[in-house]
């Protein structure tokens, strides 16, 4: 019996137990194999339930576990690091028809996954006031300034109230007060050892994505102002500095 046959049977309940299995006590190997297969899948479903807590609360345990089970069969882990298991789960949810009644579910799941990723991102200290003063001293270079952001940073731009829905499940907000159809953009970052979820404007989200892509400050700010004339550059830069999320400033353009 080859490992690939064994693995295929493990992930497809419609396949019979691999030929050649024996049980130590003479019991039916097919029955023992079904128990093992179930344990494997249940452990993966449990792992998803750990990461996607709010998602589970939104759909209820029964639907969540059914959905997670299908995901586990279709997307077995590619890494032994279970913390990162479920990276494709938000996409899976998006195309999972029983969940279409909750169109915001995939985005909430994405937010939850990004929190885990932020938790495990590398530590990089934020820039201090001196570094900012240095670049301010020569302001002709400011439009070309390239800004490095903390590795934990990510933006979840949603057509739904992704931040409020998530916050309502942290006891911060009453769920009944949340209008799920209001578009919200989430900024996820880790400041010190604490992962934070902050609501920012769509334009500020675009600004951060531009900076992450290496766009210089002048062009990124112009892009954001183009999206929303009310884009508040001071507020978002202030927030990033306050959260130690700006890790380097490169006046000459490209990061070293």
């Amino acid at each position, binding site marked *: 019996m080859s490992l690939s046959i064994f693995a295929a049977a493990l992930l497809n309940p419609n396949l019979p137990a691999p030929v050649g299995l024996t049980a130590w006590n003479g019991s039916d190997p097919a029955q023992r194999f079904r128990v093992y297969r179930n344990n494997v899948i249940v452990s993966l479903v449990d792992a998803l339930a*750990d*990461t996607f807590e709010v998602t589970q609360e939104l759909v209820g345990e029964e639907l969540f576990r059914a959905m997670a089970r299908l995901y586990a069969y279709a997307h077995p882990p590619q890494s032994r690091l*279970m*913390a990162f298991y479920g990276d494709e789960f938000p996409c899976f949810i998006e195309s999972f028809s029983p969940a279409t009644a909750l169109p915001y579910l995939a985005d909430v799941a994405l937010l939850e996954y990004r929190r885990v990723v932020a938790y495990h991102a590398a530590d990089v200290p934020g820039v201090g006031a001196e570094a*900012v003063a240095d670049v301010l001293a020569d302001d002709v270079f*400011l439009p070309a300034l390239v800004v490095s952001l903390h590795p934990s940073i990510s933006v979840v731009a949603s057509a739904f109230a992704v931040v409020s829905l998530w916050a309502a499940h942290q006891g911060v907000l009453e769920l009944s007060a949340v209008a799920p159809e209001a578009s919200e953009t989430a900024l996820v970052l880790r400041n010190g050892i604490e992962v934070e979820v902050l609501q920012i404007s769509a334009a500020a989200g675009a600004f951060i994505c531009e900076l992450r892509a290496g766009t210089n400050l002048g062009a990124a700010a112009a892009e954001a102002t183009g999206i929303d004339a009310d884009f508040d550059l*001071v507020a978002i830069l202030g927030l990033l*500095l306050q959260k130690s999320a700006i890790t380097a400033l490169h006046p000459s353009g490209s990061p070293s």
Partner: protein
Amino acid sequence: MNKTLTAASLAFALGAAMTVASAPVAAADMADKEKCYGVAMKGKNDCKAGAGTTCAGTSKMDHQGNAWSLVPKGTCEKTVSKTSPSGYGQLAEFKEKKA
């Protein structure tokens, strides 16, 4: 769309942002937090690190002695813990007393 902002306006924004940011920054720093054992509710301990990590929401009972939450410094020993021998959270792991 490719118009870029002037150096002066960017300098103003960055300068003003510094003032915004210099409001109490360190609130989330480890420096003024302490690890507090025995005050996390079941499954709500702070070290949410995803599935399979040793400590992600793994505390199986309320006020488990070896599970900690980050709490503002100074508040730990004022937080009631049913299982702690002192009746309050402690700054080190402890063996739970029977509640």
